[in-house]
């Protein structure tokens, strides 16, 4: 994240990114911002999530940055889950944008999903 001081070593920094801020960014800028945050050990929360195409690129770029003993990749959870319901058509009719889903991304070695259902994500975040 630009112009933000790094969190103390004994804390976990959480970056909450508004939909408004994401709107003006290109796909690669979003992915860079997410992965830069995650590399720093931060938890990145996106108010409005990524498009399927951006998710696919996020996986691809994450893979190219994995490095033994340094970076194991990401843990990612979205809410509500896009694929689990049959509400796609209804949502589109209602004018709801399917990409508007809260998305939590963190370093795979520091974030562990404890429980998840349609109404709750419970995650354990550990320090570096």
């Amino acid at each position, binding site marked *: 994240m630009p112009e933000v001081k790094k969190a103390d070593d004994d804390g976990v920094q959480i970056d909450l990114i508004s939909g408004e801020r994401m709107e003006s960014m290109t796909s690669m800028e979003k992915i860079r911002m997410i992965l830069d945050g995650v590399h720093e050990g931060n938890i990145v929360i996106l108010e409005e999530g990524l*498009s*399927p*195409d951006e*998710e*696919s*690129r996020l*996986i*691809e*770029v*994450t*893979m*190219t940055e*994995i490095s*033994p003993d340094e970076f*194991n*990749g*990401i*843990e*990612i*959870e*979205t809410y509500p*889950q*896009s*694929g*689990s319901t*049959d509400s*796609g058509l209804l949502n589109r009719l209602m004018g709801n944008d399917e990409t508007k889903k809260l998305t939590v991304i963190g370093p*795979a*070695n520091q974030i562990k999903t404890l429980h*998840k259902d349609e109404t709750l994500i419970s995650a354990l975040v550990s320090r570096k």
Partner: protein
Amino acid sequence: MGLITDIRDSISSLFSAQDPKRIGIYGPPNAGKTTLANRIARDWTGDAIGPESHIPHETRRARRKENVEIERNGKSVTIDVVDTPGVTTKVDYTEFLEHDMEKDDAVRRSREATEGVAEAMHWLREDVDGVLYVLDSTEDPFTQVNTMLVGIIESQDLPVLILANKTDLEGSNVRRIENAFPQHETLPLSALEGDNMDEVYDKIAEYFG
């Protein structure tokens, strides 16, 4: 202009009629993708595609079997079968050490795995005409990787069949997969035992023919 467009259209339709559809076998690591790819290739061409293993990330490069001709009800459909590495958002080489692997080998395996997954994601955006999405039916299908991948496949408007594999195992639960992806057709099968392959071939012909 009109003539050139017409010629171009007829050339491309000529090619698309002849070019076999490229069908990607996607899914999480260890779901049985290669076992299925091998069974399809053996059933219709006589030879296999690649090695299968209980250790995740056995497939680390997409492998293709071209011109697999599947015969159904007197008609035949020709497809290219692409077996891809299991998709994930994380790879930890230390997990391979538990499979009695030396550190060097584990690190190499993880590096190859990450390259393979990146390549598979790229292919999915660029080079695939249809998808067989393979899941281990003894495992929870409600994972983020499954949700994202099926979402990516849907956003590309690719025809997709969900395959609930490993129905020969005790804990197999096909219903759970049907519930996870109600918008798609789910077929149960055992790629290892060859159970229900006739229905799988019927649907492949129907979806990708």
